[in-house]
């Protein structure tokens, strides 16, 4: 269970970014989590909600974009999503593939409500 630490890192980043928007309110933070990141999105949401409660950032939503694992077949060159049980290409059956993405643990974006569009960053 390391989602609390990860939620805390997300909130720390919001805290730093908030300095760029002194007149705005950060209402949402977007996080990208890959299938292979080893992070449980539900647990992360739960921890984040608990951390935000009672802080000056409330209300602050967390939006999680879950990314499946993607491979590129080195035989037919097509992209596909391997399943847990089968890593071979579903199009041509080749076992020869390259990992493309699906291990992300990234901060994607913030949504800032800047009211009457006062001076931003």
């Amino acid at each position, binding site marked *: 269970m390391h989602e609390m630490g990860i939620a805390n890192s997300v909130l720390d980043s919001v805290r730093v970014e908030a300095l760029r928007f002194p007149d705005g309110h950060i209402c949402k933070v977007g996080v990208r989590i890959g299938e292979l990141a080893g992070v449980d999105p539900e647990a992360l949401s739960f921890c984040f909600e608990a951390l935000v409660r009672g802080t000056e950032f409330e209300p602050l939503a967390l939006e999680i974009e879950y990314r499946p694992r993607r491979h590129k077949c080195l035989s037919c060159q097509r992209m596909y999503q391997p399943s847990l049980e*089968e890593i071979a290409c579903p199009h041509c059956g080749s076992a020869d593939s390259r990992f493309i993405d699906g291990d992300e643990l990234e901060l994607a974006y913030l949504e800032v*409500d800047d009211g009457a569009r006062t001076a931003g960053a």
Partner: protein
Amino acid sequence: MERVPLERKVLSENARIAEDLRARFAEHNTLCLNLISSPGSGKTTLLERTLESFAPADRVAVLTGDIQTENDARRLARFGFPVKQITTGGTCHLDARMIERALADWRLEEIDLLLVENVGNLVCPSSYDLGEAAKIVVLSVTEGEDKPLKYPSIFFKSQLLVLNKTDLLPYVPFDIAAAEANARKTHPGMEIVRVSCMTREGLSDWLGWLRAKRQGQASLATSSS
């Protein structure tokens, strides 16, 4: 409403320290390896067998992580190499800052091989880069051959799988071929060694892998293999 792109790692502070450590390891030719497994799969025993294979002049050091107790450091210190316990006090993984702190009073120029034993856990340690050259996952035959499918992140990120406690294979319903096939479904091309730390069968394969990893760096003669 304005959307501001960020596009950086969530654990960017850990990543920064890990990259700093990686640069220091490279500068001093220190090979750092991060050993990860569930509790009780035999990381510490594997390290005992590893340390006893080295000559006293070999420049090996160990950092061993646990939530509590100094037991592992005591077990590993018997071999005469520098060993330091990192007790996390509840945290389920090591992070780069813990490694940085633990190394503060060690001289990397005097260490050719740094073995890091992570906290026993197949999930959380996979998210934290420690600046290592490779992650190694240890799986014992008393666990279950579907572990690579249940915990894909760590098997995907580890270069080597050490299948440990093979001496127990006659007594447990563990299909070792299925375990290896599952590991390679998660991580095509994963390197695998089968080891028994009790009978010592397969230890030479593990020590050979270590030696191969060290090629191109300062020589480290193992006294036996």
